[in-house]
């Protein structure tokens, strides 16, 4: 549920084009992807969303975006995305320098919650939980690190819609500990393609000491729940 395509300004040695991303999904045995646009997050939300909506591969589920640096445009863009059937919203908080107390981020968090959209967001969960709390929001924090596990568990106890990506839960017992503490519905697998190597997170997840039901929930069940 954490896949992007486009260009990475800091990594001209990395092919992040859609064909390259699709090849990598195949190579790593990833059946489906929640796909967002790097153009939308790093340059221009509207044209990024346009190129996202133009993709037609059945393996891909579009994740729209709005720019937190210009939240005035967010409301009509969210309505446009909703009209196109988009249920998921990716926020590039860290990349756009939007701090948790910025009014623009608070506004977008409220708009997304009002529309029942699930938010996928970058940024340190210990800080970026704040604009989403108390709204019955559905939010996946993409950068939850093993070092931040305790803080995430505390949040998830109060927020049934808070989910962590398993990508950086990479201590020997992190994935298992989150599942034991708050349940598999608070975890979802994300690869971080194309900015991250996939095998580290995939191998850790494949070897996780989970029941088959828990593994299915993390592997696809949580993400499917956002779409139903």
């Amino acid at each position, binding site marked *: 549920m954490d896949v992007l395509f486009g260009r990475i300004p800091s*990594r001209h*040695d*990395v092919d992040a084009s859609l064909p390259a991303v699709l090849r990598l999904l195949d190579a790593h045995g990833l059946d489906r992807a929640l796909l967002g646009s790097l153009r939308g997050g790093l340059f221009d939300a509207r044209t990024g969303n346009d190129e996202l909506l133009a993709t037609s591969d059945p393996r891909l589920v579009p994740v729209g975006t709005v720019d937190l640096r210009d939240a005035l445009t967010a409301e009509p863009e969210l309505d446009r995305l909703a009209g196109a059937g988009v249920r998921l919203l990716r926020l590039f908080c860290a990349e756009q320098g939007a701090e948790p107390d910025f009014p623009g981020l608070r506004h977008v968090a409220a708009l997304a919650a009002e529309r029942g959209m699930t938010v996928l967001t970058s940024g340190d969960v210990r800080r970026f939980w704040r604009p989403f709390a108390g709204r019955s929001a559905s939010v996946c924090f993409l950068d939850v*690190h*093993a*070092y931040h*596990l*305790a803080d995430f*568990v505390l949040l998830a106890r109060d927020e049934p819609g808070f989910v962590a990506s398993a990508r*950086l839960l*990479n*201590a*020997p*017992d*992190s994935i298992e*500990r989150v599942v034991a503490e708050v349940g598999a519905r608070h975890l979802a697998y994300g690869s*971080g*393609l*194309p*900015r*991250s*190597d*996939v*095998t*580290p*997170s*995939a*191998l*850790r997840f494949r*070897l996780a000491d989970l029941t088959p039901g828990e593994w299915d929930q993390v592997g696809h069940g949580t993400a499917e729940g956002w779409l139903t």
Partner: protein
Amino acid sequence: MIIDVHAHAGPWFFAMDVGDPGLGETLMRRYGIDAAIVSASEAVTYDAVSGNRWFADVLDRWPADGPRLYGYVTVNPTDLRAAEADLERYLPGGRFLGVKIHTTYPAQGLGSTAMRDALRLVAAAGVPALVHTWGADVWALVDVLAAEPSLRLVAGHMGGPAWREGVAAAARCDRLYLEPCCSITDRGKVRFALDRVPTGQLLFGTDATLIDPAVSLGVVADAGLDARERELMLWRNAAELFGIAVPRP
């Protein structure tokens, strides 16, 4: 064969239960890691002397039929008198093969006077040092290596987020080795290093038991190493640098 040159033992202050040295053995067996060079978390983060003592005891109790375990003598650059005593105490036994130096917990940067003095002590001891590197100041190690012609240093984490600087620095000095383990797995950074630094300077490390070895092994898998690169990076370079005996082919 796999030699892990960046491993830890003991508990951490995060929400993880990884303090039992037996977990290290379990992970080594699970991932096929034949030998590991380990520093004690207590020595790295809090008290070098008590942590080194604890790990010496772990080595004494390590099962003879287990994967091979070796130690780093952790040196705190702010207490070189204790460091000198620990080097004299532990290096002659043959189970401690090098020195580990962190920068965060002793609050001494790579370019600090204390760090230079510590690395001079390491040079005199005649063993390699694994140094925590986490930024563009990895370049300071090149200056130290120029001043200490016998010194061999391993840039732990390859500079971390500044891994391109770690690669550039290693390309300038053949006694600066790169160990790229990192919980953040920026795509393609190991291949980036292999394409710019002689393969003889690349080492494999995991940061286990703080981080699961799946992460570093996954990074290596995604780098697409050929057979020669795999042999050198995964074990042969480490065996030669640290003097670890390997089975004859």
